[in-house]
């Protein structure tokens, strides 16, 4: 879907993107990063709204040279609250559909459908500027969907939503990715949002990509690390583990399980038998997306 090579963007002295390289494939991909990491700038460059150094391809097209062709095939949901003033919700969506090249009649028909899809069916004739924040977010999603694009660029889609609205929005996005075959690039600084909707993630920090790949791979942790709870003499168990060449740390009780790095689980059971301890819990350690993200954004930069 997206190919980005050595993308650089400066705003005066400020470096917004500093040599971004990544490939984004089909499906839903999260674009994670703290505020100011360059997520919105990257999305605007992909839309062809901002010039930049380097190379970018959106569905095989160059957004700098063919911005109209690119924009005709993608849907964009901006971060800020925005509306077409003076138009009812359905009129605004149809209008934006027409600007995307749809014939008037099709645009209106389609606008009604997407308004129902995003849950604004009953409110579609109200003026859009009177919508609540949650409704505005849904309206922006409807506007991004109206011309049936293959790829959706979503900039902080859950901004300003209450917990219920957020859950509904995320469910909609997940449904789009899993049931309607849309490709999503979801920019957010909220890890649970990305984890719920996306399979892949790209992490940005100070204009650079610090991690990327499938979430399952990034969170799989290191092979051979286990969390062990034992009943009995934990200190002796740890000593036996050391004797068998395994590393361990922690107390080992129910409150603070022992973290053991060993090749396979056999050494753990042998050490427990030798120490006269009972293994009450054993599981391979998985890292959370939050661990991965914090490691990535807190690690010192190479330069």
């Amino acid at each position: 879907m997206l190919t980005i090579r050595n993308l650089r963007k400066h705003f005066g002295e400020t470096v917004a993107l500093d040599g971004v390289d990544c490939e984004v494939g089909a499906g839903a991909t999260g674009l994670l990063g703290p505020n100011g990491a360059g997520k919105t700038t990257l999305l605007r460059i992909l839309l062809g709204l901002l010039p930049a150094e380097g190379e970018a391809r959106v569905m095989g097209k160059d957004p700098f040279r063919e911005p109209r062709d690119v924009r005709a095939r993608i849907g964009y949901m901006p971060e800020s609250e925005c509306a077409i003033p003076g138009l009812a919700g359905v009129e605004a969506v149809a209008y934006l559909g027409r600007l995307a090249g749809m014939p008037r009649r099709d645009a209106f028909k389609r606008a009604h459908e997407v308004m129902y899809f995003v849950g604004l069916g009953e409110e579609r004739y109200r003026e859009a500027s009177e919508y609540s924040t949650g409704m505005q977010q849904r309206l922006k999603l409807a506007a991004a969907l109206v011309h049936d694009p293959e790829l959706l660029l979503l900039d902080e889609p859950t901004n300003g939503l209450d917990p219920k609205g957020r859950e509904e929005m995320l469910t909609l996005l997940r449904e789009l990715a899993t049931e309607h075959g849309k490709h999503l690039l979801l920019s957010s600084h909220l890890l649970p949002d990305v984890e719920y909707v996306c399979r892949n993630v790209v992490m940005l920090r100070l204009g650079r990509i610090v991690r990327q790949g499938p979430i399952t791979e990034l969170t799989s942790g290191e092979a051979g690390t286990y969390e062990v709870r034992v009943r009995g003499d934990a200190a002796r168990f740890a000593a036996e583990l050391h004797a068998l060449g395994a590393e361990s740390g922690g107390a080992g009780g129910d409150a603070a399980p022992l973290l053991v790095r060993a090749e396979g689980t056999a050494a753990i059971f042998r050490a427990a038998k030798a120490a006269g301890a009972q293994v009450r819990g054993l599981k391979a350690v998985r890292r959370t997306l939050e661990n991965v993200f914090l490691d990535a954004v807190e690690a010192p930069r190479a330069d």
Partner: protein
Amino acid sequence: MPIDIASYRRWEGRARPTPLAALGIAGTMIRRRMKLKIVRVIVFVFSVVASGFAALVFYLTLAGRGDPMIQNQIRQFGFENVNLLAILNRLFDSVIGFWAFLLAALVGAPVIAEDRRAHALPLYFSRPIGHLDYVLGKAASAAFFLALLLILPRISMYAMEVAFSEVEGTAWRQMPTLLRSCAAGALGVALFTSISLGVSSLTERPTYAALFLLGFGVLTTGIAHFLAEVLDDRGWLALSPYTCVHRIALHLLPVPIDLSEDTAYLEELGIRTAWFGAGAWILAGIAVLVARVRRVEVVT
């Protein structure tokens, strides 16, 4: 939701060419403006004024049909054998300035300001349209209303004379007058459109933009006339945008006698200076507009 219906995809990846995209914007903006009661009132009031002028043409044209009373009145004014259509167009130009500023403040000044206030520009520019489409679309919507005010009455006056004149070949004979008067109207439309959109791009508040435009009209006209009087140099009149257009209209529609006393004073402003003034104001409006819209896109 049938989001994947194949028929929806027939336009996919096909961006509209510039004039069509701009027309789409203009059409929606015109419909939106017509929803405003104040715009409907202004358009109605002005249709009455325009109808008045058309009725005047009708009345004076009847003179050619031999009504002795009307012929006698015309003789008293000394209007025999002169181009009545041109005279009435000149009169029309002398009364239209304020109304044009008022309409421009209502239909031109808010168009970009309200988009900026609602942060609508990212929505526009995420579609396959460019700056030119956006600006042309907005300009066309303002120009449509201004043309109703500045061009349509001239066409109705012409139509009235053609319809009621007994003289053969009136349509053809008066065609140059119609074209010249419409050219003057078109110049006014271009001037008010560019200035009002330039002003509109300076602020996020539509009301401020409208008030600023009205203030601009009053101030430039006041200062231009003040300086022209005090310094005894009519060239200063070019500071007033509408005065330039009015002067050019007088030049395009020459007549031996006139109904308005102000025209002699205006004709002291050199025609080249008037063209220069009008052109400079149009370019200034366009320059502000282009600079602001480009910048706004990055900021939003």
